[in-house]
């Protein structure tokens, strides 16, 4: 056993420790903080396991395009918005790129906005991709993958459909093939919106 000969000899140097911090209130506080943290993790876990956001208000974001144009999702109320996540290194994105552009040209004057979000990419390749497919709707980098995170995308391509009132009306994972996008847009355009 440990010998501590000096202990008994100098009682005056050892004042009785005060344990005020751990009064009953302090303990409840400690438990409260712990349980609060655990519930936070539980909530985060449920959220993380729920896949991409598919309903509710579409998470807002502002994106600056490679051409300098800027657009904020929440300022596009009254219009149908198609948010497409892509990357130049992603072969399935190439499959849908021409179809996306073609659909955009068809609907651009009918109250439909396309936003291309370039996910985990380098600018040079991205610009070459945009040029290759002659993409004319706004396309910008997802800086810090913030937008991808907000939509909880699993990869690219993923396309989110935003209704006129800013609510999400579903997501398509993987490349879009005709006429999926046309159908979805027609459906969303048919929704009533106050003032239209």
């Amino acid at each position, binding site marked *: 056993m440990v010998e*501590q000969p000096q202990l008994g000899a100098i009682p005056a140097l050892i004042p009785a420790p005060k344990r005020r911090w751990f009064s009953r209130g302090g303990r409840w506080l400690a438990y409260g903080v712990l349980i609060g943290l*655990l519930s936070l993790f539980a909530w985060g876990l449920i959220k*993380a396991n729920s896949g991409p956001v598919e309903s509710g208000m579409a998470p807002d974001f502002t994106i600056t395009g490679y051409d300098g144009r800027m657009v904020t999702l929440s300022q596009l109320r009254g219009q149908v918005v198609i948010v497409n996540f892509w990357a130049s290194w992603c072969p399935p994105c190439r499959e849908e790129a021409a179809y996306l552009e073609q659909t955009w040209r068809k609907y651009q004057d009918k109250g439909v906005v396309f936003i291309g979000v370039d996910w985990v990419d380098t600018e040079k390749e991205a610009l070459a991709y945009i040029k290759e497919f002659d993409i004319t709707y706004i396309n910008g980098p997802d800086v810090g993958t913030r937008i991808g995170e907000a939509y909880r995308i699993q990869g690219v391509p993923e396309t989110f459909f935003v209704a006129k009132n800013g609510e999400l009306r579903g997501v398509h994972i993987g490349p879009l093939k005709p006429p999926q996008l046309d159908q979805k847009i027609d459906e969303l355009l048919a929704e009533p919106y106050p003032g239209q």
Partner: protein
Amino acid sequence: MLADIGFFAVVIAFLLAAYATVVSAFGGWRNRPAWVESARNAALLVFPLLTVSVIVLVYALLTLDFSLAYVADVSSRAMSPFLRATALWGGQQGSILFWAWLMSGFVAAVLLRKWRRDRDLMPYVIAVSMLTTAFFIGLVVFITNPFARLWHVFGAEDVTAAVFQPANSMPYLPDDGKGLNPLLRHFGMIGHPPTTYVGFTGFVIPFAFAIAALITRKANEDEWIRTTRRWTLVAWIFLTIGLILGGRWAYDVLGWGGFWGWDPVENAMLMPWLTGTAFLHSVMMTEKRGMLKMWNIVLILLTYSLSLFGTFITRTGVIGSVHAFGKTAMGPAFLIFIAVTFLGSVALLFNRIKTLKAEHEVESFVSREAAFLLQNMLFLVIAVAVFWGTVFPLISEAVTGTKITVGPPFFRNVTGPMFLALLVLMGMAPLFAWRRQPVRNLFRAMIAPLVASLFITAVWGYTHRMHPGSIVGLWMVAFVASAMVYEFWKGVRARMQSRQENPLAALANLIGRNHRRYGGYIIHLGVIMIALAFVGDAYFKQETQGTTAIGERLTLGNYSLQFNGLRGYPGSDGREVVEASLTLFEGERRLGELSPRRDFFIVQQQPTTIPAVYSTLGEDVYVLLVGWDGDGRSSSTFKVYINPLINWAWIGAVVMVLGTLIAAWPGDQREASYVLKAGALQPQPATGG
């Protein structure tokens, strides 16, 4: 089938671990040595059983048994046998099995040691460590099983993975596997997971001892600390190596020119490291002065909980990260286990708080006790800040509905000054005496290193005038380094004078006689080298990006790079390589050839950027191939970084490992600390420790 043997070995190991948990706890509670002995034997069997299943899995990976879902996922024909073997921890299922295996190894090792003084701790050490091990084996058995096979169910589009054959199905055998994630094919990423896991799992030993000491009301005695000191040190150094290998991997593979990005996954590792480091220091206060007993317990509970928490957030995607781990079903189970561990240990601590009494109080602010206390506070505050920044996106989303990620600037600004304060404290700590000392003596002890560091800084400042911030940083590094060197020199000089030894023998004896103390100083020297790398990174980093035609040059600082051309060829492990050829010049002097690459992994459809680095002790020239025009005949784009002093980070790591080896070297140091404790009332010389 061999895989069945692996699976059943895991199942038996799970049953034995569960048995050991219950029986040892009961044996301890009712004081039945025979029960404890039985639990110990069961616990000892877990390790060989898991070894069998690990061997089976590695064999399956090597021989490409694609009927196993795990093998089809992480191994492939194009991979070399070495890479196939390391795929054991290339995916989640294998990682968890590997983790459980390491933990059972630690537990077996601790159970095989001699249990003399602390025999009454044993039942609860077994119970706690086996509970944790059983949990991880349980994950392997029930949730993320590496021995699950691929089946094709009639009528279904996809194949399913299951251990037992589902109804209406037939076995499915793919031609080839997907192979290891290309980003993970690097020595840093091959070494990073195992070292990290050893670090994380190793902390279960001090944790189990702390809980056992609390349960048996022996936490007030220092026995558990003495017993676990080396275990903690081993876990800690592995965690350190893991952190540094991870940094090295990021530097070599991720292609952003840095080695630390404050990503949640990195923070998850840093937090237990911070509290673990604080623990390693605070136990010295307990051993020498009988102080901070409750604090030690809190720190080890925190360290262990943060290890679990780190695994939880990295493996379940609760907090978004650039690290792509697959999402899994083990989240809820993990959360419940963490809740049990957190709440259980806190409740136990509150229940036993009265048994923990300090034998002394801090007597003066100018004492080693006060320095240790301040140091501990700093470590803890940094850990809290990192925790807050890491969890903040979750909190902000819960409260305001928008996810706000705090980036590297937050962590840099908040923790930077505290790390600097820690650094200075590290240099000053050896100069403080235990208990108290006149401030005058402290200053006297500080004069030599202070003068030396000011001299070094003046020379540096004169030659590098453009960065005022760096001068402060460098002064700190120089001060701590000179304080350390001075400390060694004082010891060597004393031996040379009193025993007429030559300097080398004096140094060897000095370290040999008190390897724990001088090993610690050597670790600190390693830390200083890493700090130097951070100073270089913070103040002297330069970068540029440019497109050059063949024959033209790209210039950065004193260096220029001449682009000679681009070539493509099929590489090993199923990749297409595009490699640029560059000649590096300093002024007009040719330094060598650099070949940055872009590898495209065909199966995974994933490109990786592999930098080319020209490396010296002073700085690295780090070049990335960013892109090229068409077929690359005309021009290519490069990103170039000058990363000064970065090699000191890796050298510092090696020095830290060396110091740890010295500090943990076997040899009975117990007497020395007893003497100090008994003699605590005698005035200590300023260098006493």
